[in-house]
């Protein structure tokens, strides 16, 4: 199962995803799931999580990073569990709120 790292932005609390940084040895946190770096096996997933935790402790930009399962559907990454799907979109009863309402600005 493919996995990505999800976390909360420290300042805003918004959901962010671990992505590649500008340099090879850097990581970055992005608001859109399509920018997330995908681990295709467990070893890589654990590497990503270790990078995320180290970055959270070093730069204090994010809180509580953890791995979630994803699959690609029609070229779009989607969490497999409904909890994470809601987290990645926003409240299902208020589609004007959360990431689903943020669009390209996320």
């Amino acid at each position, binding site marked *: 199962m493919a996995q990505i790292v999800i976390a909360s932005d420290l300042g*805003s609390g918004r959901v962010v995803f671990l992505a590649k940084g500008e340099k090879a040895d850097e990581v970055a946190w992005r608001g859109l799931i399509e920018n997330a770096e995908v681990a295709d096996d467990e070893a890589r997933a654990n590497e990503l999580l270790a990078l995320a935790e180290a970055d959270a402790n070093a730069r204090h930009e994010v*809180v509580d990073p953890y791995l979630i399962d994803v699959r690609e559907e029609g070229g779009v990454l989607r969490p497999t569990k*409904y*909890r994470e799907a809601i987290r990645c979109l926003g*409240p299902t*009863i208020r589609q004007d709120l959360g990431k689903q309402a943020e669009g390209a600005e996320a």
Partner: protein
Amino acid sequence: MYRYDEHDHALVQDRVAQFRRQVERRMKGEITEDQFRPLRLMNGLYLQLHAYMLRVAIPYGTLDSRQMRKLAHIARRYDKGYGHFTTRQNLQYNWPKLEETPDILAELAEVEMHAIQTSGNCIRNVTSDQYAGAAKGEVEDPRVWCEIARQWSTLHPEFSFLPRKFKIAITGCEDDRAAVKVHDIGMIMKRGRAGEVGFEVIVGGGLGRTPFVGKAIRDFLPKEDFLSYLEAILRVYNQLGRRDNKYKARIKVTLHETGQEEFTRLVEEEWAEIKDSTLKLPKEEVDRIAKHFEPPAFRSLAEASPATDARAAADPAFAAWMRHNVHEHKAAGYAIANISLKPMGEAPGDATAEQMDVMADLADEFSFSELRVTHAQNIVLPHVEQDRLPELFDRLLEAELASANLGLLSDIICCPGLDYCALANARSIPIATQLTERFTPEKQEEVGDLQIKISGCINACGHHHVGHIGILGVDRKGEEHYQVQIGGSASEEAALGKILGRGFSADQVVDVVDKIIETYLELREDGEEFIETYRRVGQDPFKERVYGTA
């Protein structure tokens, strides 16, 4: 209403300044999240699914118009234009930013509000009857004692690190609108043999994964011993409460494992040591607090209002609102008006900033600037002249706040569930909105008093255990699934519901509730409410209809 003295102001402002510095240190990376988490939680700031959530205390559910306007302003300026009124008479903002939270707390302090002790293993906001000071038949206004408990418990050094969170509710009426029997401590004001006023003390109630109805450990406690007895209970709990297992750490488990008789003996023993200490409340101090809760200057009015009666006779919508949302007041010519926050298809308990402003304006115009928050997630204007009820109703209609459904099946208590909450296993709000959309106002009227309560996880913030129909969301093999139980009640005849049987998928729940209601309508005898029919016939007929088996 209670107004802060210099000590209250200093305490709250000091706390804002402390938290501002703590946030700055966290943002700079000078403290870790593990170090910061308990600090933010002590100030009511959680990190939820999509964002931070700030829980603001509304002491015993009482606030005035300037405080409601401030809540509206904060919703507009710092959040996304709305807030969520909770089952503990608090308000939650779902989208505040960490770096702006100290500013929010500073704004709250301007109107004598805060978020202290809305989280953590401490004594939480003391809750009460939303009709306190207005209800006919009330022994005395319980908010005097809620305020005394608030002052005693705020930053109390001995009780800031309890085994688990601790919730107290106090009512001054026989009719329990504060669910006192499902609190860690519930107190009911009553008269003693000589007519003196005191409290019945109930301990060890609670919901969550191990629900209990509380046990009365003292039939009558004199007023002067109020604090010493509370302290004795808390001391016994603090000593015996389990810190090895958070699921067994609430006082309900302590009392259950210790046994009611032994627990009571220990409390009485502790109390004997401290009852004549400085905790014995001097009458002058009680009187000083009580002055803040003196009734407003009611006008001398006739008991009835012919004009309001005439409008009700001519206008069925107004008549329905009068029937369900208006409650008898202790002062002649006055009424208690409930504003339902349960419109069809909307999240129970949510109010927009604009609605908060409207409710503040209406409080100023109709109710001596006073408002109340109910544990059923509605708002109350406690002192409205009966003659002015038609005018108030028209204003509520304009603001889309005139849902005439208090106590009906669409007046659902519902936690935020998985739409917002990091602890939830399933969504609860969509189930509530589907139910309100399924049953027409006419059908609800036919069904009558029916309390549906929905929780998105076993922590039971939606009080499902004490719903006439309770719905609990669970995760079953990665799917949202719902258990249904019936027969619960949060009233003075408190009872825990019983699970009907195997659970249901999200798209089955509304049909199941429909079947339960149809069974009730077929079985009920003249004038019988749902809970009365259930108590008479038991669970089997409902089970048979829902599952096709007895």
